[in-house]
C-alpha cells in the first residue's frame, strides 16, 4: 500500500491500469471519462487529488477502431483536471508514446512519399511464401484473407471503396473499444481521411467515409494521387513529436514515464523530466527462457535504424548479429516497390530472432521473415516492445513465415491474442511500470530498472 498516490486510468488500456494498481495495492481513482453527444470528451475525477501525487496511465495507439487522438486529448484533459484540482504533481504514464515515430512512408529522394498508380491487380491470397503487398500509396488495399476473394480479377479496391463510401452516407465505423467509456452510439461522421486534398473542387464535404488512410495504402487514392505541391516547392510532412510533448507540458504534466521510445531524442522535446523505461530486460528474459539453444541463434535487426537496439541485446547475451538493409533505390524501373531487402550476415540453418521496438502494420517484420526463410533460417521469432497491429497486420502475420511474435502489453493485446493464437506471446509490463511509479513516488532511483542484464 502506497500512500498519497492516485493512479488514474484512461480509456485506452483498462487492464494495464488494473494490474498496475494491483501491484501497487491501491484501487484506481474513480472517474467518469466519456463523451458528450457532440463528441467532446467529458472528464470528471471523483476522488480527491488535492496534494496527491497523480499518475495517469494512457497508452497512445490507434487503429482497428481505437482512436489515438481521442485518447491523447483525454489524457491532456485529465492532466489539466488534476492540476485544476490542486494535485501536487501529475505524471503522465504512456507505455506507448503517441506520434513518437516518424511516418514509415516510402520516400523518394526529395523527401515526399511516393505516389504511384496501381500497376497490377492484387495478389490472390496470402500464402506462406507470398510477399505482403507493400508500401505504395498506389497499391490496392489489401483486405486480409477473407476480403480478397472478390478481387481476384484485379479489381482496384481503392476505387471501389471510394465509390462505395460516397454513397453510403451513414456507414458506421463500428465500435469504440474505449473500455468503460460512455459512448452515445452515434456513428462517426467524418472519421478519417475524407476530403484530404484542399483546392480540389470535387470535395464531398461531410460525407462520412469510414475508411482511413494507412501508412501503406491510401484508400482515397484519387485525392491523394492528384495532390501536387506548387511548382518549385518541395512538399514535406509535418512532424508532430515536439508538438505532442509541448501539449502535454502545456496541459500541466510535471513528469512523463514511457517505454522504449522509437527515437530517444523525443526525451529532449520535453522541458519536464522523462523516464524512458526499457522493455529489453523482458525480451532478454524471454529469449533465455523460451528459445532453446538461444546461444546459437542470430539476432536480426529488420532495418538499419534498429541496429543499435538489436546489437545491445546481441552484445549482452553474446549472440551473433545480422542486419537487414532496406535498399531504397529502385532496382528495376517496372518494380512497384522501390525497397528491396538485403541481408547482411549469415542465417542459414539458424534460429532467427528479429528485434524491433514496434510492430504497426507488420510490414517490415513479415518482409524480413520472408527474406530470412529464403536465406535458410530454421525458425523465426520476432520480439517487439509495442504491438500496435493496425490495419491488416494480424492476417499479414498469420500468413507470414514468422513462427512466433512476442510483444508486451503496452497496447491491449487481448484481441490480437485471440486472432493470432499460439503465434503471439504477450509479456506483462505492469510490474515494471508499477515499480517505476513506486520508485518515482518515493524519490528512489529508477536506474535499476534500466539495466537488469
Amino acid at each position, binding site marked *: 500500500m502506497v500512500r498519497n498516490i492516485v493512479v488514474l486510468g484512461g480509456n485506452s488500456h483498462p487492464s494495464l491500469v488494473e494490474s498496475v494498481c494491483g501491484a501497487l495495492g491501491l484501487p484506481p481513482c474513480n472517474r467518469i471519462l466519456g463523451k458528450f453527444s457532440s463528441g467532446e470528451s467529458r472528464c470528471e475525477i471523483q476522488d480527491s487529488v488535492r496534494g496527491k501525487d497523480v499518475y495517469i496511465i494512457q497508452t497512445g495507439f490507434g487503429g482497428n477502431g481505437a*482512436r*489515438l487522438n481521442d485518447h491523447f486529448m483525454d489524457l491532456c484533459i485529465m492532466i489539466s483536471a488534476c492540476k485544476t484540482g490542486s494535485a501536487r504533481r501529475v505524471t503522465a504514464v504512456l507505455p506507448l508514446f503517441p506520434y513518437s515515430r516518424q511516418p514509415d512512408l516510402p520516400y523518394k529522394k526529395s523527401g515526399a512519399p511516393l505516389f504511384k498508380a496501381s500497376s497490377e491487380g492484387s495478389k490472390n491470397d496470402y500464402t506462406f511464401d507470398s510477399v505482403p503487398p507493400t508500401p505504395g500509396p498506389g497499391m490496392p488495399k489489401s483486405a486480409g484473407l477473407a476480403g480478397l476473394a472478390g478481387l481476384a480479377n484485379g479489381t482496384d479496391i481503392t476505387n471501389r471503396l471510394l465509390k462505395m463510401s460516397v454513397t453510403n452516407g451513414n456507414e458506421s465505423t463500428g465500435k469504440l473499444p474505449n473500455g468503460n467509456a460512455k459512448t452515445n452510439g452515434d456513428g462517426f461522421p467524418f472519421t478519417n481521411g475524407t476530403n484530404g486534398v484542399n483546392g480540389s473542387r470535387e470535395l464531398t464535404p461531410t460525407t462520412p467515409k469510414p475508411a482511413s*488512410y494507412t501508412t501503406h495504402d491510401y484508400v482515397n487514392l484519387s485525392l491523394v494521387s492528384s495532390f501536387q505541391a506548387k511548382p518549385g516547392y518541395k512538399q514535406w510532412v509535418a512532424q508532430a513529436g515536439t508538438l505532442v510533448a509541448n501539449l502535454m507540458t502545456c496541459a500541466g504534466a510535471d513528469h512523463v514515464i514511457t517505454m522504449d521510445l522509437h527515437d530517444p531524442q523525443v526525451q529532449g522535446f520535453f522541458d519536464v523530466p522523462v523516464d524512458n523505461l526499457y522493455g529489453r530486460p523482458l525480451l532478454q528474459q524471454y529469449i533465455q527462457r523460451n528459445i532453446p539453444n538461444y546461444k546459437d541463434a542470430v539476432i536480426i535487426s529488420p532495418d538499419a535504424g534498429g541496429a543499435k537496439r538489436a546489437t545491445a541485446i546481441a552484445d549482452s547475451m553474446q549472440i551473433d548479429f545480422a542486419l537487414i538493409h532496406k535498399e531504397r533505390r529502385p532496382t528495376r524501373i517496372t518494380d512497384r516497390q522501390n525497397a528491396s531487402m538485403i541481408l547482411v550476415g549469415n542465417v542459414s540453418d539458424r534460429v532467427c530472432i528479429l528485434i524491433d521496438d514496434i510492430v504497426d502494420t507488420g510490414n517490415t517484420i513479415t518482409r524480413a521473415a520472408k527474406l530470412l526463410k529464403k536465406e535458410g533460417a530454421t525458425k523465426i521469432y520476432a520480439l517487439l516492445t509495442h504491438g500496435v497491429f493496425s490495419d491488416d497486420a494480424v492476417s499479414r502475420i498469420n500468413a507470414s513465415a514468422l513462427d512466433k511474435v512476442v510483444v508486451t502489453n503496452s497496447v491491449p493485446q487481448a484481441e490480437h491474442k485471440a486472432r493470432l493464437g499460439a503465434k503471439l506471446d504477450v509479456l506483462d509490463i505492469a510490474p515494471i511500470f508499477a515499480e517505476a511509479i513506486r520508485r518515482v513516488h518515493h524519490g528512489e532511483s529508477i536506474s535499476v530498472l534500466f539495466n537488469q542484464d
Partner: protein
Amino acid sequence: MSAEMANEIKLISGRSHPDLSEKIAKRLGIEVARTISLNYSNQETSFTVGESVRDEDVFVMQSTATGDVNEGLMELLIIISACRTASARRITAVIPNFPYARQDKKDKSRAPISARLVANMLQTAGANHIVTVDLHASQVRCCPDPKTRGVANRAAVDNLYAEPSFLRYIRENFTAEDCVIVSPDAGGAKRATSIADHLNTAFALIHKERPRPNVVGRMVLVGNVVDKIAILVDDMADTCGTLVKAAAVLKENGAKSVLALVTHGILSGNAIETLNGSVLEALVVTNTVPLGDKVERCPKLRVIDISPTIAEAIRRTHNGESVSYLFTHAPV
C-alpha cells in the same frame, strides 16, 4: 517591393469543414493552400504541406465536426505547429465553433476547464491569433497562461458575432412588431435582449432547471408571447432538448408560431428526430459547423451562410483594419 508587400493571406483548411473554407477562399479571391491531411493506420494524423508559407500570413480554418472534435482539434494543432516550423509570419486559427467552449468553468470539484486548455494548446502549438464566432463564454478570450512568457505572447481572440446576420434574417422574413425574442435560458438573456433592442421588439425569457448535462428539467416562461411569432435565440443547438421543450412551453403560452435562431448547429445525437417531431417551425443555424446531410434529413433546418463575415474578418485582420465593424454589420 518591401517585405510587407510580399506578405499574403494563406488559407489552410483542415478536413472538418472544407466547404466553408472554399466559400471563404472564394470571397477573398484566393485559393485554399495546397495541403493534405490524412490518418495513418495507427490513427496518427499526418499533414503534408505543398506550398511555401514562409513569411506569410497564415489562416488555418478548422471547425469541429460532430463526433470528431478531438480528431479535428489535433489536426488543427498539427497544422499550426507545422506552419510555425515553416516560418510563417503570423498564424491565425479560424475556429468558427470553438471546441470545448461549454466546459469553461470548474462547475464541480476537479472538473476540467477544457476551454482554457484548448486555448492554451492552440497557443502552445504556435497560434498568434484566434478568430471564432459566438464563443459560448467570452472569458475564454483572455486565458491566463502561467507558462507563457509575458502578456505580449498571449494569443489574441477575436470573437465574431452572428447577430448581424440574424438581425438581417429576421428583418427580411418577418415584421418586427409581430415577433417576440425569447431566450431559452437565463445565460442567453443578454444575447436575446441585444437582438430585441436592435429590432425594437418585446422580449421574454424561459427559466429552466438543468439537473444533468444533456438533460432538460422543468421550464417556466417569463413574459408574454400570446399571438406572436416567438423567436428563440441561442448560441448552440446540440441535442435540441432545450429548444424543443422551450418551443412547447411557448406554444402552450399562446405563441402563434415558434422558430429558433442558433449560431452553432451541432445537432448531435437524435437532434434531427427531435426537431422533426417538435412544434418548432424552423431552426435557423449558421454554417459554422458542417451540417452534412442534416439539411436533407430535416426540412425545418435553414442555413445562413457565415462565410462573408469570416472572410471579411480575415481580410481586415490581414490588412490591420478594425474588426469591430463586423460586430454590428453583416457583409452581404
